[in-house]
């Protein structure tokens, strides 16, 4: 191959059994034009330094496991082309705002707990028997929530969110957007079960509409919009329940 070039990649290392604080290690990687950052990390692991740890799976922007800070920006490393950074040096670090387990691997327990709290699944007050068939939905009803259903839980939005960085109790962009996705689903009846989480102090009200979550989302979900829509709906419902306390509070 004649198109090989060499790029310097500095990776944040943290081996808790050896060191108290994260350190940096620089590798020189020969890469081909079509390589992404994840290819370089796999090349390092396979040929240069087998001790480097990082998460990855699908290599095609679907699994959401290879999110890292690439030159300070949250990116899916399977979608960040090395040629876009060459000839400059690159820095690869674990997603910020999360504790580091080892090297580029972060602890995502906090996000998983929040995701579970918004109940991101279809809730029915009463399930109809299978014999009555499926729950039908029109293309328009699908359109209402479709973009929010594209979330792959990669957590780039949490790394980009300055509010989450300051206030770790914040339920955060992806979890709220996914709760919103089910609230908008015509088959769902679980709005009330999610409301106490989504409309809590730690929920939508913590967001100051910085909008970075929507900027970094690799799947073009717009969590900032989900939060904004929920703020408007919650405020309108609250006003309605004050003006008409006898009315349907849904």
């Amino acid at each position: 191959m004649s198109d090989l070039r060499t790029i310097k990649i500095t990776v944040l290392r943290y081996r808790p059994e050896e060191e108290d604080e994260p350190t940096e290690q620089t590798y020189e990687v020969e890469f081909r034009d079509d390589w992404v950052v994840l290819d370089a990390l796999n090349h390092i692991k396979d040929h240069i330094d087998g001790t480097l740890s990082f998460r990855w799976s699908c290599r095609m922007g679907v699994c959401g496991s290879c999110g890292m800070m690439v030159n300070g920006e949250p990116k899916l490393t399977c979608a960040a082309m090395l040629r876009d950074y060459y000839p400059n040096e690159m820095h690869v670090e674990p997603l910020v705002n999360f504790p580091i387990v080892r090297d580029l691997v972060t602890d995502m327990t906090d996000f998983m707990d929040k995701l579970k709290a918004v109940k991101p699944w279809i809730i029915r007050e009463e399930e109809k028997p299978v014999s009555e068939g499926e729950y039908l939905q029109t293309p328009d009803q699908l359109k209402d929530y479709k973009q929010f259903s594209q979330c792959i839980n990669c957590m780039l939005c949490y790394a980009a969110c300055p509010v989450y960085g300051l206030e770790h109790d914040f339920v955060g962009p992806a979890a709220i957007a996914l709760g919103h996705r089910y609230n908008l689903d015509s088959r769902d009846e679980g709005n009330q079960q999610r409301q106490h989480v989504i409309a809590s102090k730690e929920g939508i009200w913590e967001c100051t509409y910085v909008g970075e979550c929507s900027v970094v989302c690799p799947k073009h979900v717009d969590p900032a919009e989900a939060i904004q829509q929920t703020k408007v709906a919650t405020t309108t419902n609250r006003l309605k329940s004050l003006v008409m306390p006898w009315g349907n509070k849904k």
Partner: protein
Amino acid sequence: MNYKEHKSEPFWWGMFSQGGVIAALLIPIHIFLCGLAVPLGLIDPELLSYERITALLQNPLVKLYLCVLLIFPLYHAAHRIRFTLAEIGLHSLAKVLPVLCYGGALAGTAVVLYILWVLL
């Protein structure tokens, strides 16, 4: 984590949101009329003379309009200042900031009402 729906926040956010719309849509018109149109000679200054304006202010609809114009943006500012202060490092004051900021907006509301309905 024990989550609880926040009951008062929709009110403050609603005021913030309305205040933002009013500040963005109506205040520029007044800035243009008083700050640009008169100095540029597009409007006869006599139209905004003290006598004409004080006479206009006797109309309750004008008073109501001024209430909306002046009061809602106060809550917009209060909400913005509250969150900005918390985020630039006064996080430990998170409980006091709403009292100070919305308290300031409430005081401003009282001043506007006093001027429009008592002084004028």
